[in-house]
């Protein structure tokens, strides 16, 4: 398998506080890696290091044989190829759904408006939101906003998609509609790194599970093994905290 993202000895610290401590991870093309862990374990920070939203103190992030963190050259060029979706959607409130989607393709990829719109409409249709193309973000439900945010990221044709707790702010009945979109993306063979609290979703979508605790990868493995036969006590404890038996 050809590796697309390679993280070596990644260390992130705020002053003396080490949030991430020597994390190694390799992601192959078409692979879906799901990261879980207790709140404050550094999993979201880790994701933000992958596209350079956070600077790092040690180690490196290599994307397609190019070191992208610490930066050399323009961060925008790299981020174009690494899409990210946030917990709080972050649609642009002054633009309609369609305008939200075509802004970056037109300005960054210099796509023609007609082509960008055509592509956007096709993507909206796929996630069942074609009728909302002229709505403003405030007129959408949380689940709808998040589906738009996902397809907006797809408009840039990213080679890797980072999803940061994308259902954490949603009402329970809206979680499903968003996760279904992600599961379909996985079936298409998209490369994704996902941080989530939805364990049953993680199990369904992941090729590989990672458990981060205290800024380190504590355990990793295939989902079956990871959930049914955890090796470390810390992962056992973490998984038990989700069950009621």
């Amino acid at each position, binding site marked *: 398998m050809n590796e697309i993202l390679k993280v070596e000895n990644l260390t992130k610290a705020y002053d003396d506080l080490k949030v991430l401590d020597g994390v190694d991870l390799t992601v192959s093309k078409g692979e879906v890696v799901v990261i879980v862990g207790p709140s404050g374990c550094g999993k979201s920070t880790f994701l933000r290091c992958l596209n350079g939203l956070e600077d790092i103190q040690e180690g490196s992030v290599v994307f397609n044989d190019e070191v992208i963190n610490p930066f050399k050259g323009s961060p925008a060029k790299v981020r174009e190829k690494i899409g990210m979706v946030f917990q709080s959607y972050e649609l642009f409130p002054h633009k309609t759904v369609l305008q939200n989607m075509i802004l970056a393709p037109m300005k*960054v990829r210099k796509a023609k408006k007609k082509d960008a719109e055509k592509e956007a409409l096709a993507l909206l249709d796929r996630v069942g939101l074609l009728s909302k193309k002229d709505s403003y973000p405030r007129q959408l439900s949380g689940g709808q906003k998040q589906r738009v945010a996902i397809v907006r990221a797809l408009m840039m044709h990213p080679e890797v998609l980072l999803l940061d707790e994308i259902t954490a702010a949603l009402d329970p009945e809206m979680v499903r509609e968003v996760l279904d979109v992600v599961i379909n993306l996985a079936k298409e063979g998209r490369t994704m790194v996902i941080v989530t609290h939805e364990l049953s979703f993680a199990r369904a979508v992941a090729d590989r599970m990672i458990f981060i605790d205290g800024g380190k990868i504590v355990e990793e493995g295939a989902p079956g093994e990871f959930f049914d036969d955890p090796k470390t006590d810390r992962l056992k404890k973490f998984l038990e905290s989700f069950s009621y038996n």
Partner: protein
Amino acid sequence: MGFEVLLKGNNMLRLLLGVWTALRISLVSVLISIVLGILIGSIMTLKNPVIKVITRGYLEFIRIMPQMVLLFIVYFGATKALGLNLPAEAASIIVFSLWGTAEMADLVRGALTGIPKIQYESSAALGLTTTQTYTYVIIPQVIRRLIPLSINLITRMIKTTSLIMMIGIVEVLKVGQQIIEANRKSSPNAAFGVYATVFLLYFAVCRPISLLSKRLEKKWEN
């Protein structure tokens, strides 16, 4: 009740011309305030401590000083300190611009810092450069927050212009006073009718503008 005096001669026209004087001074001052306010407000978002102290000091001083006091400082103080014989209208435009700039700068600063950091990040995640992020994402949002507030500033400016009669500018209130004086004998009750009219004229000018500001604010909420 004293309204009849306004129908005499060109009295009503004079009153309306007085309104125009007030409006003209407000509009000039608002334009200056918006330009300088955007400039200073943007500078205020910088983290430089010297700039912070200076701008905060300026803002705080203007905020706690009555506009009337500022008017007197500039109008009489400038004459005395600089030996400058400033025309009253220039003095009032300077004062209202100083005041409006402070108000506007604070609004601009608030609008700029009020855009959540993650909006910048999500733009970056889409591959937009810093310039593109500001041009297409941040500034349009800032402008939409600022337009209703700037319109609101216009009404506050217009109301404040009533003070300029105190340094001798003949605006609507002063014209009213003159009309009352001139007709003291023939219409002894003119004060009621004329001041009621001035009252309503201000209302007629300011109310539509504040309505517009409220409408836009509602329309562009989040």
